[in-house]
């Protein structure tokens, strides 16, 4: 028995070392770490981001690299396993000596690697919309904070659809819970009564939506216009939307606005019965701009597949990567401290035809778009904020966070400065 196990273990070790060794060591390159799960539950979303990063690095190399050197991607597979994220992050920084890391998807994976980046003083670009309530010196958040996604979406539904009753449905983990807490406080501040808000959580990968969908239907038949705000994550969305369609809930009656459903998620669905349901993002593939058309063409060429879709976190990596390139050029070095200081204030084009800037709180400015699902699996933009919305690390609608600000420029250099007590370190990290 033991000899068999040893053999298996040896084989496993061999495969892992082969994977990480695939990026060959070479002199005079700048290494960029890619920390996205290529196996396990999150592979469905994160594999695409790995490909997007490889494409961006490839394109930068064609333009002549960075500081006269070639860029080199170091890809590791944390396998959707949170402790492994910590290990792989350490490996990237300590062993592979990467200059910056682009990665993570779930909040828990980001929280797992935070201490490593702090300890080893490296840089992480985090490309996914998240619950906010965090600002860390070594992390740059290129996805949306709640005020860049959830709040504008709710505003849109109130103003355009006249929604008075709200279902907040989410998967049971930190992002939906925090987002719903913020939304609940926001809705109550707007005068929505307690009994007009229904909050519902489901386990990861929930597949039997019959009861919940019929509850939503019953909740929506009370005579007031009702909408569902969905923070349902990943795999659970397909059965949720199928059940909605089968029970005949149309977007004209009860629209669902989702924060985790993009082009990639819709690829596994027949969207004809879902036309009109909404999603709030900072980018849609259907956005008409020259930068976007170029990006999509490059993506299709790189993946050799003209059916591959683009999505919001890919745009976040596009912005983050270009910001990093610009900051390194400005600093003239890839040294972490110099680049971290150079990043705030850097402004690069985004894919929606404008510019996004890195702010002192390490979040970026973005436009907020609301799109309606079309029968071809794409979104039609039906609303766009007038200007860019700056990301707010600490929500103004939670009493604990409202008084916190984040500013990583000297002399403040603090991620959670309490404006009342005038002290750094009010809450969180």
């Amino acid at each position, binding site marked *: 028995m033991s000899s068999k196990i040893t053999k298996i273990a040896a084989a496993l070790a061999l495969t892992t070392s082969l994977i990480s060794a695939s990026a060959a060591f070479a002199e005079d390159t700048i290494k960029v770490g890619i920390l996205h799960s290529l196996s396990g539950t999150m592979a469905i979303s994160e594999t695409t981001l790995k490909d997007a990063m490889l494409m961006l690095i490839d394109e930068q190399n064609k333009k002549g690299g960075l500081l006269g050197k070639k860029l080199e991607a170091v890809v590791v597979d944390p396998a959707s396993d949170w402790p492994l994220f910590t290990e792989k992050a350490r490996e990237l920084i300590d062993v592979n000596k990467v200059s910056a890391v682009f990665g993570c998807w779930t909040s828990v994976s980001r929280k797992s690697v935070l201490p490593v980046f702090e300890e080893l003083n490296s840089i992480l670009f985090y490309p996914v919309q998240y619950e906010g309530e965090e600002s860390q010196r070594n992390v740059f958040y290129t996805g949306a904070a709640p005020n860049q996604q959830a709040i504008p979406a709710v505003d849109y539904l109130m103003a355009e659809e006249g929604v008075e009753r709200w279902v907040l449905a989410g998967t049971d983990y930190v992002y939906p819970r925090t987002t719903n807490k913020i939304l609940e406080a926001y809705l109550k501040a707007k005068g929505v009564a307690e009994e007009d808000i229904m909050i519902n959580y489901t386990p990861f990968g929930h597949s039997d939506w019959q009861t919940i969908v019929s509850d939503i239907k019953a909740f929506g*038949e009370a005579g007031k216009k009702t909408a569902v705000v969905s923070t349902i994550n990943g795999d659970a969305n397909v059965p949720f939307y*199928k059940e909605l369609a089968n029970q*005949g809930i149309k*977007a004209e009656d009860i629209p669902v606005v989702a924060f985790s459903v993009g082009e990639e998620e819709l*690829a596994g669905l027949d969207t004809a019965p879902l036309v009109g349901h909404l999603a709030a993002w900072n980018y849609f593939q259907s956005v008409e701009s020259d930068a976007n058309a170029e990006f999509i063409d490059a993506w299709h060429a790189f993946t050799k597949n003209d059916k591959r879709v683009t999505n919001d976190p890919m745009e976040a990596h596009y912005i983050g990567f270009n910001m990093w390139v610009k900051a390194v050029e400005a600093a003239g070095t890839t040294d972490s401290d110099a680049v971290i200081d150079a990043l705030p204030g850097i402004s690069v084009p985004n894919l929606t035809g404008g510019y996004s800037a890195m702010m002192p709180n390490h979040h970026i400015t973005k436009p907020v778009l609301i799109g309606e699902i079309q029968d071809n699996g794409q979104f039609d933009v039906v609303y766009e904020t007038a200007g860019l919305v700056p990301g707010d690390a600490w929500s103004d609608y939670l009493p604990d966070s409202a008084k916190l600000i984040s500013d990583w420029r000297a002399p403040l250099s603090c991620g959670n400065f309490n404006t009342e007590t005038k002290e750094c370190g009010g809450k969180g990290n």
Partner: protein
Amino acid sequence: MTLLRALLVCLVTLVLSSAAVPPSMADDLQDTINALADGSLKDRAEKVDALLATGDPKVVPVLSQLADGNLYVRKADNRVFLTESAGKNFTLTDPVSGEVIPDINKRTLDKIKANNSLRRQIRDGLSLFALNSPDPAKRLEAAETIFKAQDASALPAIEARLAKEQDPEVSAFLEEARAGLVLSSDASESDKLAAIDVLREKGGRQVLSMLTAAAEKGEGAVRDAAERAVVAIERVLAIWEGVQNIWYGLSLGSVLLLASIGLAITFGVMGVINMAHGEMVMIGAYTTFTVQQVIQSTAPGLFDYSLLFAIPIAFLVAGAVGFVLERGIIRFLYGRPLETLLATWGVSLMLQQAVRTIFGPTNKEVSNPSWMSGALDLAGLSLTWNRIWIFFFALAVFGLLFLLLKRTPMGLQMRAVTQNRNMASSLGVRTPWVDAFTFALGSGIAGIAGVALSQIGNVSPNLGQSYIIDSFMVVVFGGVGNLWGTLIGALTLGVANKFLEPFAGAVLGKILVLVFIILFIQKRPRGLFALKGRAVEQ
């Protein structure tokens, strides 16, 4: 807007009875239609109202195409066309003259966008047109839409139609729609009482909220009648809710049954702790996907029957994988449960990654055939067709498997080998082959389950993982080695889950069920239906 509606209602009745439109009006119509393309989504609402107000039947296709996203404007001259996709190009139809222009490149056109509120406005507006449609089904739909929209200005149109309506079913719906509007208007007390009676007959949640509002606002006899009606409707709703919960429970139970029935063979009958069971389900689902792809590209006409082809193919594919697994790995590990567990778990990871490499990590779209989409409305219930089919399918699979085990020589041999291997062997049964085929059968059944489960959930490499725990739970709870136990266990767990969910929520409900099973196993370690006899002692 309400004024416009009222105007429109009069016009609809007027125009529909009059004959053709004079040419000058046709030009106006063309301009009003072309104006749709200009401005933002917000301006479009007014233009839609203007079109509805013309009352011209020609605006019906324009507006419904706008709602469906098929209305385009030609960039060159800003003319608006109805379109139909023909391959890469569009066929354009002029909405006024009816002139058809084939083969137009999409790039020369711009789509006129609509959003939810616009679609709602169009739907409500067009329902007044449809009220006079010759097709009773359309009139029925229109009456329902009007009932839902609760727009008081529709009242004259309903009454006009009611006077002419011949179809009793449509009449009944129109009466209900009228009652709803009368109740919220300032009609006389007797009219309102009559309306309450009509609504009380109809029942349902929307009526409930209308009556509650009426009870709050009304006075005297109207209030009393409304309150009585509310109580009556609530009572009926409570009963239906109970029935609905039972059905949801049975439906969830049938899914559990499908997922675990293969395991009831490999784990229950053979005693192999088969962690790769979920992956057999996944292989079945991917087989369905592949079959649908092939059918779509070779014989799209057969698409509605794709599942019928997928079932035997999935059985064979998953069964073959199971066969290889048994011959290649598991047969060396009989009697060593811990190693079997580790080895099959390793196989499950390999199968997942293999599928990920071949098909990619993203979800695959497995479509529902038309006969599995939508819902069956039965009094106060809405039962979705896919769940109904899966329920009966699960029972059918169970029945067939049961017959196979009890009534065929192969089943006899399987039972003989599991009950007393040595005795079976000495009677000339080739036990290794029986093992292999039993395992293949269990895997094949799991593959069939995959065909059904692909209809309600994701088809992704992780599909199997979400079912494996539930499957083991069912088999252990029902009693290892007993098919009846699996059936009763699955249905019990399903119903228990669904009765807990409304009170405890989905997350806590699941935990409570798990705790219940743990306690139950403490009391009855062999599950619901314990296997008796000599096999147990071994």
